[in-house]
């Protein structure tokens, strides 16, 4: 009896899928997320947790290079699928599950290295790809080489004064573009001291050619952003609910009452209010941004649109008065993640410039 083959078959019933979102291809991502929710397949948190790497959309050259690097970090058994169009999702996922369960394929194609997956000992590439962010912190990305030389090709952390005047280690860490609940294609390069961000710069990979995605429903777009915020805030139950309602709206369902109930529940959460207060975002703060988001969800509901003013997707935090990267300086890592999620910039509309 082939125990490995048996385990592979059992495991392939519920693989974890790492979704790579491509700017301008929100349609493919939405279809993928809806299909995963329907099958009960979890979304992976990172390459180490993934069995399937699913690229939602057709990435440009920069993002494609990052995807290749991330693919090299996914442990066997694994399958990579490309979902260029929403219609292909079901078929591709079925094929992925079949390949995961196929012991012969996994042994010969994946582990023996025909797909470049043989060597997992050293999965960070050192061949000049350092300016491609990987999954958000796999290594100490080296723009600035530290004083301490290198270890295994990686620069040592450099030192610098921190906010209390102490001299502490500084790490250069790219956040994104493959990070859970993170805007498509966004990379924020941060200089961290402890978990406090000292410097930050943002860019969107392959921003030029991306055609902005036209949301069929503004309310669904708002719920999508809200779900990401709740996911980052560590409230999977509410985030899942927001995604379910988003998918229902996109399928043409009448879920106004449910959306209102969800928004009310989030507003009433004292814990969430306690967690988002006193985090400044430029001239405003995180609690105000969240309130704005929740109001926008309600305003965008089709029931509210009878007055004639068509729902228009809004950009948040414009009054915060600075580019996104500057807003993150001084924030702790967890707060920075919340700020990025609350601003929820549409990266396919951000252009080639900076956030």
């Amino acid at each position, binding site marked *: 009896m082939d125990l490995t083959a048996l385990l592979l078959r059992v*495991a392939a019933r519920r693989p974890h899928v790492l979704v790579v979102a491509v700017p301008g291809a929100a349609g493919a991502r939405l279809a993928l997320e809806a299909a995963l929710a329907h099958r*009960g397949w979890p979304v992976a948190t990172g390459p180490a947790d993934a069995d399937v790497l699913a690229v939602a959309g057709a990435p440009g050259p920069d993002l494609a290079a990052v995807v290749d690097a991330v693919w090299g970090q996914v*442990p066997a058994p694994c399958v990579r699928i490309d979902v260029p169009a929403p219609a292909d999702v079901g078929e591709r996922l079925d094929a992925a599950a079949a390949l995961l369960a196929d012991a012969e394929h996994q042994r010969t194609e994946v582990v023996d290295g025909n797909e470049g997956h043989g060597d997992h000992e050293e999965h960070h590439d050192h061949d000049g790809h350092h300016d491609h962010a990987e*999954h958000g912190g796999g290594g100490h990305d080296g723009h600035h080489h530290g004083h301490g030389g290198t270890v295994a090709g990686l620069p040592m952390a450099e030192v610098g004064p921190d906010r209390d005047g102490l001299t502490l280690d500084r*790490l250069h860490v790219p956040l994104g573009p493959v990070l859970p609940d993170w805007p498509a294609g966004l990379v924020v390069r941060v200089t961290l001291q402890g978990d406090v961000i000292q410097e930050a710069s943002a860019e969107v990979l392959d921003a030029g050619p991306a055609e902005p995605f036209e949301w069929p429903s503004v309310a669904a777009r708002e719920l999508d952003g809200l779900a990401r915020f709740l996911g980052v805030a*560590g409230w999977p139950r509410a985030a899942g609910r927001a995604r379910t309602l988003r998918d229902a709206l996109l399928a043409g369902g009448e879920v106004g009452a449910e959306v209102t109930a969800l928004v009310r529940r989030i507003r009433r959460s004292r*814990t969430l209010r306690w967690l988002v207060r006193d985090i400044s975002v430029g001239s405003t703060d995180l609690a105000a941004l969240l309130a704005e988001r929740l109001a926008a969800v309600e305003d965008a509901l089709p029931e509210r649109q009878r007055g004639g003013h068509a729902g228009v997707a809004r950009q948040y935090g414009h009054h915060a008065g600075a580019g996104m990267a500057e807003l993150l300086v001084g924030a702790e890592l967890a707060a920075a993640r919340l700020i990025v999620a609350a601003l929820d910039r549409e990266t396919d509309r951000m252009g080639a410039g900076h956030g």
Partner: protein
Amino acid sequence: MGEMPIVPEPAALPWWSALLLPVLLGFVTWSALVGDALFSGERAALAVPGREAARLLVGQPRRTVAADSVLGRVGGGVLPVAALLAAAVLPLGERPVADLSIGVVWFNAMEVLAWAAVWMVGWGSNSALGLAGGYRFVAQGLAYELPHMFAIITAALGAESLRITTIVDAQRDLWFVAIMPVAFVVYLMSAAAMAFWGPFDAPVGRDLAGGAAAELSGVDRLILAGGRWLLLVVAAAMAVPLFLGGGAGPLLPAWAWVAVKTAAVLALLLWLRHRFPTVRMDRYVEFAWVVLVPLTIAQALAVALVVLGGA
């Protein structure tokens, strides 16, 4: 029941029960995983733990560049071992596997090992996200550990003993949850926090792509996840002898009451994860030190007065 025993019963279970303990804990943990899948609204909830375990068993372990794999793997391994050792003083019915005279201290010492374990895993993977996750747990320990120690020492104070079986005996008339409700609630919070279970799951949070566990795959991830679940189960089970009267209850035998009460505490902890968003330690430390520490000290003082008054 009834007549007093003339010869004192052996307080601990026979030696071979030590071999059964991992099996029993494994079974309870498996049930808890199914329960969590049910709470999460998963379809085929019964199959979820099996599929997940199979997935991690065939998964290839991976290493990051310049990782300290020995440190990371020792850290991962410490977690389930510490949980098992902590369970040794847990009365399974009326008697534990080892009836130590310092049972409460033993349990606390074993559970504190998790502190080192998670940090070691996070540091060992040589990844910024893992490192941040590991340090988040160190900060978490600073927040929950002190109120937690005051909570469990209040139970020991109520019984005037550090021996778990004596603490259970002291609750024959009145469960400790009735005279020390604050300690019980604080204990439940720290039980979730020590197993970095939601809403205290920031060390392995989604925002850090898995935090301390971000770079783990295959068996490494299985051991960490399994250890975490064992710790949650043992911490939930320890609430029963400390606060809920142990095996006391009508009709059913003691072991059945222990099982029922443990299941109830576990269900509460599983539910909590879905009810609240993740509590970050930059907020919780303040709450723990400004609110919980004074509250638990006041609780201990009140119990001390009751004990003195009753003596």
